[in-house]
């Protein structure tokens, strides 16, 4: 987790999904990062992305998602080392494949041209291209080096793009399947070793040793994915991928998958929901994925939350019983007659205080 300052200067707290990418492992120092305005591949509107620049490794783009505080939008802050950051939103930073960000600019096959000319004609911001690895371009473009290394020509290819998207889809599916299996296995192990207090979706990100150990433990438990589950997983993978595609590409992609738009409107099954949650707290394997922003809130609409809420309210001193107790205590402290209460309402304007007439003397001689 790290805190960063946005362009407006308002600090915010972000949970970085993929630690090795933002931290230089050898130096253990945080790689310098900055915020960029890039067109959202789905909506086409500009939004902020985080980019990192490092000499040692290739730059990457991160998607920022803001998670509202589950209880209060107004009164929350984070403590980061010795700083207090009073921004109620927690931000999730997840890596995103920069190729997705290029998709809104291309739709159909065009003529061969040099890359520089290509981006000029499409008015693609140069900062966005800085994050791009030139080797990646072969996924979307046909490359022609017939004129030698000095003049490499590119031509956007729809077929290549769809093939690339299919590869992505397969990766997502693989990941979801692995997760599903792991969950099933854990469930089985949990049932065998009663008393486990871990949530089945709990995972210590990045620690391979533990994962290996767990895998060993789970290995003897055989779990299978039935056809129904497999279909659900595929639907969910397509849904995830479509969140990174604009209208045009979504239609093309769905056509290639032999699906229609209705799948996106499908209410996600509970199975899919739990998958979403697990993905939110896990580092991503495929590196290109992120969860849908619409499913963010599901993390907090947990039925178990209400109990935790009550407890929190109680410990924070805003419980009902507490205030009542305080009230009676107050009442006990200062009993007042009805007369005293009515007297406090008298308009004393123009009446001077007694102390302005009589001075405080320790021993006054009483009249008469």
């Amino acid at each position, binding site marked *: 987790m790290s805190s960063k300052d946005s362009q407006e200067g308002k600090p915010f707290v972000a949970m970085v999904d993929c630690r090795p990418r933002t931290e230089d492992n050898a130096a253990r120092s945080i790689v310098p990062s900055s915020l960029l305005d890039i067109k959202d591949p789905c909506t086409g509107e500009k939004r902020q992305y985080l980019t990192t620049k490092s000499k040692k490794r290739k730059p990457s783009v991160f998607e920022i998602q803001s998670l509202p505080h589950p209880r209060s939008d107004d009164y929350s802050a984070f403590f980061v080392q010795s700083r207090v950051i009073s921004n109620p939103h927690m931000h999730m930073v997840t890596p995103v494949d920069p190729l997705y960000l290029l998709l809104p600019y291309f739709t159909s096959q065009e003529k061969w041209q040099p890359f520089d000319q290509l981006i000029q004609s499409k008015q693609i911001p140069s900062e966005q291209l800085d994050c791009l690895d030139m080797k990646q371009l072969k996924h979307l473009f046909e490359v022609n080096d017939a004129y030698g290394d000095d003049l490499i020509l590119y031509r956007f290819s729809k077929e290549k793009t769809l093939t690339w998207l299919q590869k992505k889809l397969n990766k997502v599916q693989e990941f979801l399947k692995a997760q599903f299996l792991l969950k099933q296995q854990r469930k089985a192990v949990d049932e065998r070793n009663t008393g486990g207090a871990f949530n089945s979706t709990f995972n210590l990100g990045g620690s391979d040793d533990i994962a290996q150990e767990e895998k060993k433990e789970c290995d003897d438990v055989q779990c299978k994915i039935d056809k129904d589950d497999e279909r659900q997983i595929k639907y969910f993978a397509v849904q995830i991928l479509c969140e990174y595609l604009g209208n045009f590409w979504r239609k093309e992609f769905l056509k290639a998958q032999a699906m229609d738009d209705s799948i996106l409107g499908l209410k996600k099954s509970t199975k899919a929901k739990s998958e979403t949650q697990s993905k939110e707290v896990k580092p991503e394997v495929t590196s290109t994925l992120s969860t849908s922003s619409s499913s963010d809130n599901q993390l907090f609409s947990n039925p178990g939350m209400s109990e935790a809420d009550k407890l929190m309210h109680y410990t924070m001193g805003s419980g009902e019983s507490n205030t009542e107790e305080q009230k009676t205590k107050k009442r006990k402290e200062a009993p007042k*007659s009805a007369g005293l209460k009515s007297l406090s309402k008298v308009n004393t304007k123009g009446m001077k205080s007694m102390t302005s007439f009589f001075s405080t003397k320790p021993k006054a001689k009483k009249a008469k």
Partner: protein
Amino acid sequence: MFEARLTQGKIFKQLIEALKDLVQDANIDCSEDELSIQAMDSSHVSLVQVNLQAGGFDHFRCDRTISLGFNSTNMSKILKCAGNDDVITLKAEDTADALTLMFESPGQDRIADFELKLMDIDAEPLGIPDTEYQCTIRMPSGEFQRIIRDLQVLGDTCVISCTKEGVRFSVSGDLGTGNVLLRNNAAEKEEDQVIIEMEEPVELTFALRYLNFFTKATSLGGSVILSMSPEVPVVVEYPIEEFGHIKYYLAPKIDDDA
């Protein structure tokens, strides 16, 4: 050690009743020869001062001066348990945090004792000098109570003006105006007399609600003495037999903009 036995327990009962609507907390200051209370209301525009001489008690013992801080509402609740004819005895140790109140029925066949928790009240008493007032009006306490009660129907403030003619209580409010004029009256009974002593005419304005709470002391004595001078607090004094008094001081309303 403080101990005071009052045969006419009713007096102490009435005193506290006469205080409780005006002050929330007060100190009973006990010395070798008297028991006194001085306290202001929460707005500090009025002051009540009680004095009972040691001679008025059947038995009065106070080894060293002591301040007993009490809540008037709580004290009043306990005194409600005392009968009007009961003998009331007050007792407190020098370092006590409670005041013992003992109620004995006239036939000595019923003895009740209560303990009232005391509190520390950090209030320095105000020094009230003996002053000559321009006007002094002595009148039956019942009459004063009636005038105040009647005028309260019409408004919140009343003007008390003392002239050669007599003393005039005037009120003006939304539904109309009212005046009550009292003239000198040398009745046979001392309690019925209205005696006005005046050097210069005085006219002052007061909040009726405060005056109304002062009249809670009416039962303590047959007469009331009002003392007034321009621009200083009025004194409403109820003498308690021959051995004490309860005095109320109230700041006049001075309207700069009226």
